[in-house]
């Protein structure tokens, strides 16, 4: 055999051995000692890397929590309370409990309710059109229908309704906050899911005076204060002609939904209404106010009133 091949093999092996020794010592010297719990926590997390917790991803969240040595301020919205409870014993910490939340669209200005006033054939992305124009219906606070929130959703929990051209949040929303950040008009809000997923909220963001708001959209909040007066729990406040329901204080009594003249307050996942006569007994307020209808309000009358306020 040619000696050059043997020489080559010997040289290469020698270089290999020497390098291995050097690398071994370097590895010893610069060893990063990581808390093994980080890996355990990361393994338990949903690995959605959605950023809903406020960290860059699940690994960063696990690192942050283990290093902080407390679970205060750390909450994974995807895993929810169950996950946080299971993580507690792993780390020997007490988990923070939070009410489960869901994203809510605070606008109902669909094509039907807020009729387009002009044609627009430019770029349709929300972040672009929000600067250019108030929106097809003329409301400068409402949904633009560009669907940037749907694009931002990592959980397939949103879709655009083809008829109303508004985004719809499905029940599998994990409240990761991605859509809220994506919306240039801040229409989406994370609200508590409430018992049995029942929610009441004002589906409007219009801060204009009543007549102006009504001009552009039939279901706009006009800041009439009717809901504030009827609320017994101090849960509703009107700022800049816009009502806001505090979900922490709301007891889901639905009184405000009844009195809203523009149907701007929405109730979700409630049973269908009981017949009107009964609700009337429960709430005597309309009788006092409606001086014109002093006589007994018959069934047909209330139906008419409902119909007219619906239009």
């Amino acid at each position: 055999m040619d000696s050059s091949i043997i020489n080559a093999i010997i040289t290469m092996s020698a270089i290999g051995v020497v390098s291995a020794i050097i690398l071994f010592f370097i590895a010893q010297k610069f060893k990063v000692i990581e808390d093994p719990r980080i890996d355990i926590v990361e393994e338990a997390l949903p690995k959605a890397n959605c950023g809903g917790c406020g960290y860059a991803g699940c690994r960063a969240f696990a690192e942050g929590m283990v290093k902080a040595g407390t679970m205060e301020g750390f909450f994974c919205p995807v895993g929810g309370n169950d996950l946080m409870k299971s993580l507690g014993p792993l780390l020997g910490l007490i988990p923070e409990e939070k009410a489960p939340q869901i994203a809510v669209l605070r606008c109902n200005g669909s094509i039907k309710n807020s009729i387009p006033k002009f044609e627009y054939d430019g770029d349709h992305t929300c972040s672009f059109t929000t600067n250019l124009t108030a929106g097809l219906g003329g409301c400068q606070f409402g949904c633009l229908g560009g669907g940037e929130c749907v694009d931002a959703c990592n959980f397939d929990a949103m879709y655009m309704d083809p008829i109303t051209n508004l985004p719809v949040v499905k029940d599998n929303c994990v409240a990761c906050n991605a859509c809220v950040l994506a919306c240039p008009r801040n229409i989406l809000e994370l609200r508590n899911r409430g018992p049995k997923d029942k929610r009441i909220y004002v589906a409007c963001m219009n801060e204009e005076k009543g007549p102006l708001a009504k001009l552009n959209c039939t279901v706009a909040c006009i800041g009439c204060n009717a809901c504030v007066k009827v609320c017994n729990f101090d849960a509703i406040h009107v700022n800049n002609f816009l009502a806001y329901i505090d979900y922490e204080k709301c007891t889901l009594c639905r009184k405000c939904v009844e009195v809203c003249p523009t149907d701007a307050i929405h109730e979700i996942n409630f049973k269908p209404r009981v017949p009107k006569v009964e609700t009337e007994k429960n709430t005597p307020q309309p009788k006092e106010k409606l001086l014109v209808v002093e006589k007994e309000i018959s069934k047909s009358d209330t139906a008419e009133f409902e119909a007219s306020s619906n239009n």
Partner: protein
Amino acid sequence: MGLLTFKIGGIHPLENKMSAQAAIEEFPLPTKAVFPLSQHLGVPAKALVKRGDTVKVGQIIAKGEAFISADIHSSVSGKVAKVEPVLDSSGFRRESVIIDVEGDEWDESIDRSPEIIKECKLESSEIVKRIHACGIVGMGGATFPTQVKYMVPQGKTVEYLIINGVECEPYLTSDHRLMLEKGEELIIGITIMMKSLKVDKAIIGIENNKPDAIAHLSKIAANYKGISVVSLKVQYPQGGEKQLIDAVLKRQIPSGKLPIEVGCVVNNVGTAFAIYEAVQKNKPLIERIVTVTGKTVSKPSNYKVRIGTPIISLIEKAGGNMESTGKVINGGPMMGKSLITVDAAVTKGTSGILLIENEKSKRIPILNCIRCGKCTSVCPMGLEPHLLSIISVNGMNERTEKERVMDCIECGSCVYTCPSGRPLLDNIRLGKRNVGIMIRNRSKK
């Protein structure tokens, strides 16, 4: 040697100056005038009047308190009907003063005689104060408060005053008519501006599709020291201040800097005329020349309009056929914005009202980019619009900033030339907005 023009990029769209021969007509008083409190660049002014107040023509109705802001004066006399948000041309409601017109009673301090006053007795700083008090803004369309330009920062010297009589936008002729009919006043305005800036050289740049204006102004300028008129090759967007300085002086402004960096101050001819009226006649900015034109207008005209007049009345007077009109544009076809409502008012920046016929008002279908590079070759700022467009849409803000997106002057040459009808400028504007937010956040930290 060929005619002067700027070095890179540029296009030559059809000129369509249909109203070039129409003399300026005085537009009748409106019955109701609307003054948005934000009709200039910068911080909106604050209303000084309230409901029920009586105002005279030329009376101040809103004060611009911030550094970059401008005062607003009433162009009509009458009673203040309301101070409330009113739909502006882009569809947003903005705070405005609405005045019901009664008679035409002018403020006593305004000199309304037609006689031309040549000599200016005011000192440099007094001229700037007068410009500020009269609410003068750049009349070319950008509406930048003029007094800011005249407060030269320390350590900078001004060598040249450049007057923009280019009017490179197709269709528009308001500056052209102003140069022809108010030449003498305009040149006196320039001497006042020169005195204020303490410069002895002023150059008026005019494109050579207006030979009558060039001849007229050259004849008048010969009687005044230091003012010269240069004829420029027709090229869009020569009216941009960076392009105009390049065309006239062959000086290039570094990226992100202002014309003062190369010793220039650029103003529009309309501004020069407004300064003449403000300084010599004490007349605030309450009128402007507006071109009403388009293929669906039976009588393309130039009107001298009181600011606050509803745009619809201008269109009616010029015989605009609204049924065959698909789009009404505030400004020229290249940089103007289409109106959402024709009830909006004429503001300080309304240089023209352009009616586009139904067939031409739709965009062509958007096709794929074929990498032909036409947009890059016409960009007057030397940018790559196709690249900026893509990285803006994908939210690559750092990269977009590195590719100098903030240098874009939004002239629209790239969109004009794109064979695939891509919304390049729309996307670049989006990128500019995002980068602007990023820069602001950075400076906060």
